[in-house]
C-alpha cells in the first residue's frame, strides 16, 4: 500500500469516526471509551505477525509481549464493556 493511499484511508476514517460518535449520551461515555479501547487493541493483528515471523529472538520476544498486551486490551476491553452495559440495561 502506498503512503498516500494509507494517508487517504486515515483521514477519511477520522472524519467517519467523528460523524459516528458525535452526540453520544453521557451515560455511554465510559462504555464507549472501554469499548473503543478494545477496538484499538486491533494492533493485535500486527503483533501476531511480529510474533510468528520467527525473524530473530529479539523480534519474537517483542512480538510475544505485544500479543499478550494487545490480547489483554481486546478481551478485557470487550468483556468489561459488556459487563457495564449489562448493568445499564438491568431493570429494578
Amino acid at each position, binding site marked *: 500500500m502506498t503512503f498516500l493511499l494509507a494517508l487517504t484511508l486515515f483521514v477519511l476514517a477520522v472524519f467517519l469516526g467523528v460523524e459516528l460518535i458525535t452526540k453520544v449520551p453521557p451515560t455511554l461515555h465510559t462504555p464507549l471509551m472501554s469499548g473503543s479501547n478494545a477496538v484499538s487493541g486491533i494492533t493485535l493483528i500486527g503483533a501476531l505477525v511480529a510474533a510468528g515471523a520467527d525473524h530473530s529472538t529479539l523480534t519474537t520476544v517483542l512480538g510475544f509481549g505485544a500479543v499478550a498486551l494487545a490480547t489483554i486490551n481486546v478481551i478485557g*476491553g470487550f468483556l468489561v464493556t459488556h459487563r457495564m452495559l449489562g448493568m445499564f440495561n438491568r431493570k429494578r
Partner: protein
Amino acid sequence: MDTVIQLGYLASAVLFIFGLKRLSRPRTAVRGNLMSSIGMLLAVVVTLFNADIVSYWVIVAGLIVGGTVGALLAIRVAMTGMPQLVALFNGFGGLASLLVGAATLEEALDLANGADLDVEFLSTAALTVLIGSVTFSGSVVAFAKLQEIWRDLGNPTVIRAANIGLVALSALLTVMIVVGPTSWWLWCLAVVALMAGVTLVSPIGGADMPVVIALLNSLSGLAASTTGFVLGNSLLIIAGALVGASGLILTFIMCTAMNRTLVNVLFGGIDTGGVVANGDEIYAGKITSSSADEVAMILDTAERVAIVPGYGMAVAQAQHAVRDLTTALEARGVDVVFAIHPVAGRMPGHMNVLLAEAEIPYEQLKEMEVVNPTFPQVDAAIIIGANDVVNPDARENPNSPIAGMPILDVDRARTVVVIKRSLSPGFAGIPNPLFALDNTLMLFGDGKAAVEDISTALAEL
C-alpha cells in the same frame, strides 16, 4: 490468500463501524459491542493465514496469557475501580503498539543491511514508538494517580518545562531515526518518550482526569493507526483512526464541560489569575449546619428531589446508600432525579457507571442541560461529594477562576442540602458561596454514613 485476508479485514472494518455507531446509542449498545468483538475475532482469524507467520507457539502462548489476564481483570474489577482499569487498558494498547513498531523496525534494520529504508516507513515507525510510549507511561501514571499511589514529582511548572523539553527531544530523535536509523536511536526514543508521558500526566490534577483519560484513549487509537502505516495494514489504519476520533470527541466534550481548552488542561493548570475570595469572609456566620433528622423532615414533605453526585460519592462508596434513600423516597411518592455534571468524577461517565452498579435506571439520570431549567421546581437538591460543579460563582462572578464553567444550578432549588466532610475547597481551591446561601443546609460527615442516617431518620418519621 492475500485477497481473502484483505476481504476479511474489510468485513472487520465494517463491523467496527457498525459496532461503534451502535455503542453510542443506549438501546443498541450491547449489540454494538458484540459486533465490534466479532470484527476483532474475524481480523485475528484471517491474520493467522498470513504467509509471514511461520511459527505459532509464541502466538498461542501470548493469546493464552493475554486472554487470561484480560478476562480476570474485566470480571473481577469493581465498578469503583473502573477509571483505573480503563487507564490501564489504554496503557496496554499503547505498549503493544510500541512493541510492534519496535519489532518491525528492528526486523527491517536487520534485513535492509545498510540499504536505504524509505522515509515514510521510518517516520511512521518512529511515530508509533513515540505515541505508543507516551500512551503507555501516561496511562500508567494516570492509573497510579487514580489508585492514589502516585507521588507528585515536584513543582508542576518545572515538570511541565521538563515535559516540553522531552517532547522536543523525542521529535529530534524521530528525525535521527529517519536520517540514520539504528537500533540505538530507536530505544533512545522509546525511553525519552516514556519520560515525556510521565511528565505529561504527572502534574495534572484529579478533577482534570476525565480529560486525560479521554485523551489517552484517543492516543491509544492513534498508536494503532500509525502501526497500520508501518505495516501497510488498512484495517489497523481505519480502526485506529476511528478510536482516535472518538477519543478526541470525548476529550473536547470534557474540555467544553469545564470551559477550558485542552492546552490549558495539559499545560496551564487552574488559572489562578482571577481574584480568589477568602473562604472565611464568605462563610462567616452564614453556614447553617443541619442534622439527618432535619434533612429527613424536609425530604418527607418534598415532591421533587434532585441528587447531585460527585467524586466524593465514589470515594465514600455511597452509591448503594444513595440507592436505598432513593427507593425510600420513591415509596413515599417523591419524584427523584439524578443531576449529572459531565465532568463529575474521574473519567467521562464515571457517575453513570457507579449509579448503574447500584441499579439506578439510567432514565433517572439527567444531563446538565435537561435538569438545569427544572431546579426552581426542585424542593430539595442533595449534593453528595460535588463542589466546583455546583459553585454559583462560575455563573455570577466574572473574576472567579472558574468563571464561565457550566454548572448545575442547584442554588435555585428551594432547599439545598450539602453532604460534605468540611468546608474545605474543591479541586479549584476556591470557596463555594453555595454553602453560605440562606436556603443551604450543611450536613457534615462521611457521605455514606450521612445518607444512611437520613434513610434511618426518614424511616422513623
